[in-house]
């Protein structure tokens, strides 16, 4: 549209510096220094807990009787069952798993909006395994400076031995990680025996090999590259964070102007608390400088807080130059204004709404789970032929009846029909005389399907379509239910 500008041209910006022309970036290797402090201790605890849960869970047993597996947590793909302690999920109940995933998603929203990327910093498998691998690296190759020297040194017998043993331990951890994974899909003790004597299915070895490779490459080699370039979550989280989210923050108003301790001693008013010791940068597992502000790469592991507090303590300065705070609180603090209480920041409406939705889904699922029936019936009327005229004038319809038995033992269900006078049930395969009700065995923890026929005298039929009731009663008395189906007769 000539002569009409919809958008105002932006005020002339200073010309951005031309890049070095390369469209690709060489990776800068990160050598995180070891650090001690409360956040590091917390990370160790989370690491032990999460890895412990991961490795030990498949070995827990849960007695379900002779017809079901006794593994507490088992994803039985072959039989299409998911066992979780007392809970057993059938394929048609997969919405429970969908619900859990929605809860996990909302939980992530809730955590992120209150305490930032806590998932990334502490609990994400990528973080946990990378942490473990880094610790192994430290034990074998030494801390940051030793590792940097080793990297720069030419290959020698000693360097080779260190590298070799590091990768050997890494691979061992990786194999165990992949191994633990497959135990979730089969009886763990049996599978372990099979794995060792070579008789396990190929898919087990294949999965272990694949997970060994991914664990070793992602936690050993890729590390922060996974978070920065491969994971979508850092890109999504910007929508979750706001000025009331607790994030790892460098308090620039306190730290600047950076200067050595000596310089500040000479001119206390010209310098801030930051002594530019680079401790925060050296410990960062993603290799960034937190003093540049919040960044995509920051997984908020808080190790820089530990590192900085260590230095502040040595210098006798107040802690938390780098600390967990919100942008709002940081601003208030910088202006010397009173801070609102911590709980008020944490329990703000946004967080409460996330929590409410999260809890509502959880309660809804629990109620559903508690009210689940131990049996079910599905009735499908045969469509071809939809009815059969019998020689004595009776009309017969066929139904595929599926009986579900969710208990861990074989049961018998008594099926009867009503609603149409004189209706009789029969099973054409057994060839027994039609009767008012049939006893049908159903396997333990499974579905049995029967093709049954219902014949009704012509005199009881008033319409082309009538309703017929199927009543199921467990012969052991534990449960009954009723379903209706259509009974079709020829048009008259």
């Amino acid at each position: 549209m000539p002569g009409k500008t919809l958008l105002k041209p932006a005020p002339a910006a200073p010309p951005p510096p031309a890049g070095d022309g390369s469209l690709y970036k060489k990776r800068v290797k990160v050598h995180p220094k070891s650090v001690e402090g409360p956040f590091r201790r917390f990370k160790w605890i989370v690491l032990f807990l999460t890895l412990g849960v991961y490795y030990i869970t498949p070995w827990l047993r849960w007695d379900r009787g002779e017809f079901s597996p006794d593994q507490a947590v088992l994803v039985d793909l072959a039989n299409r069952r998911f066992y979780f302690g007392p809970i057993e999920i059938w394929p048609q109940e997969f919405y429970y798993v969908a619900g859990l995933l929605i809860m996990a998603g909302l939980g992530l929203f809730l955590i992120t909006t209150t305490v930032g990327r806590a998932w990334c910093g502490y609990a994400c498998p990528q973080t946990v395994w990378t942490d473990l691998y880094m610790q192994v690296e430290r034990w074998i190759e030494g801390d940051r400076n030793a590792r940097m020297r080793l990297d720069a040194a030419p290959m020698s017998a000693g360097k080779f031995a260190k590298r070799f043993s590091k990768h050997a331990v890494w691979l061992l951890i990786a194999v165990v990680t992949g191994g633990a994974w497959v135990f979730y899909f089969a009886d763990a003790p049996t599978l372990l025996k099979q794995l060792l004597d070579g008789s396990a299915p190929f898919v087990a070895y294949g999965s272990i090999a694949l997970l060994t490779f991914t664990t070793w490459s992602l936690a050993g080699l890729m590390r922060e590259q996974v978070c920065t370039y491969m994971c979508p979550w850092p890109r999504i989280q910007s929508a979750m964070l706001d000025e009331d989210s607790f994030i790892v923050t460098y308090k620039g108003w306190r730290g600047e102007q950076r200067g050595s301790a000596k310089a500040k001693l000479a001119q206390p008013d010209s310098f801030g608390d930051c002594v530019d010791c680079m401790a925060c940068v050296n410990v960062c597992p993603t290799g960034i400088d937190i003093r540049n502000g919040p960044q995509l790469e920051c997984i908020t592991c808080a190790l820089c807080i530990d590192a900085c507090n260590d230095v502040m303590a040595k210098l006798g300065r107040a802690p938390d130059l780098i600390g967990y705070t919100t942008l709002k609180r940081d601003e208030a603090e910088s202006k010397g204004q009173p801070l609102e209480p911590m709980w008020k920041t944490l329990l703000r409406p946004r967080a409460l709404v996330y929590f409410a939705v999260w809890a509502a889904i959880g309660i809804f699922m629990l109620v559903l789970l508690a009210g689940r029936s131990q049996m079910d019936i599905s009735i499908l009327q045969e469509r071809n032929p939809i009815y059969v005229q019998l020689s004595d004038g009776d009309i017969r319809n066929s139904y595929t009846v599926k009986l579900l038995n969710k208990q861990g033992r074989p049961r018998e269900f008594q099926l009867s029909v009503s609603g149409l006078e004189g209706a009789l049930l029969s099973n054409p395969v057994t060839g027994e005389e039609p009767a008012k009700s049939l006893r049908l065995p159903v396997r333990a923890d499974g579905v049995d399907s029967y093709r049954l026929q219902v014949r009704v005298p012509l005199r009881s039929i008033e319409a082309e379509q009538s309703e017929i009731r199927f009543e199921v009663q467990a012969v052991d008395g534990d449960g009954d239910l009723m379903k209706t189906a259509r009974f079709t007769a020829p048009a008259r």
Partner: protein
Amino acid sequence: MSKIDTQQNAHPSGPGNAGPGTTGHEWDGIQELNNPLPRWWLWIFYATIVFAAVWVVLYPAIPLPGGNTQGTLGYSSRADVEQQMQALDAQRDAALKGIEAIAIEDLGKDPKLLQAAIEGGRSAFKVHCVQCHGSGAAGSTGYPNLNDDDWMWGGDYASIYRTIQHGIRQPGDDETHQSVMPAFGKDGLLQPAEIASVTEYVLAISGQEHDRALAARGAPVFEQQCASCHGADGKGMREFGSPNLTDAIWLYGGDRASIHNTVFYAHAGVMPSWKGRLSDATIRKLTAYVHSLGGGE
């Protein structure tokens, strides 16, 4: 969110931010930022190209006018299917042998064999029988419904087996079911009035509305002309394949016009004999399936 910049690199014109630089491209004042991709990502891209090239050499890939390239490994998904079918056949071998070996009358006594036979028969039926009997075996006028409990040639295992083996009125098969109903009207065996009265009589014995006087006149005609095949009571005789005229099931229609038509012209449906065209095992499976439809005796 103004203060949180989670972009990997902020806009270069932002305050105090040197930014990532540009590619040096500029169109109408719009500059293209350069957020360099990690080098390893580029290598993965190259690796996929190499993978594709290797794939094209090893596996069938490029469609050409004379057929696609075959690939050096000689892989074919059809051969795969062939192999899977053979494995399936091997798996079914035991059941198949059992079905072939058992006396046909005893097929119903072995639930496992019976189930295997029914399932096999279900698929064979869909190939060989649905053309006449319909996909649900419900038949249509002239083609019997196999779901009901009325059988012209018998509904036990042995009878069904024989009917499938040898068919009905199949020329050249000595054991085929043979019988002929005369065309009473067309061939002038009965007078039109006699045909009308016997039609009324048939309506009467099948419990339908009828003219009593006319039916009474039809009774002796029936006895003379029809009872030899359909029985004195009109219930039919299986050795002749003569249908029961007293029940509710009619192969060629049970209303007045249809019955009249049948008496006048007669009907003689045919079914091919399947012995020699289908394996004995398949015929046995079909027998089991037809028997299971609900009318088996």
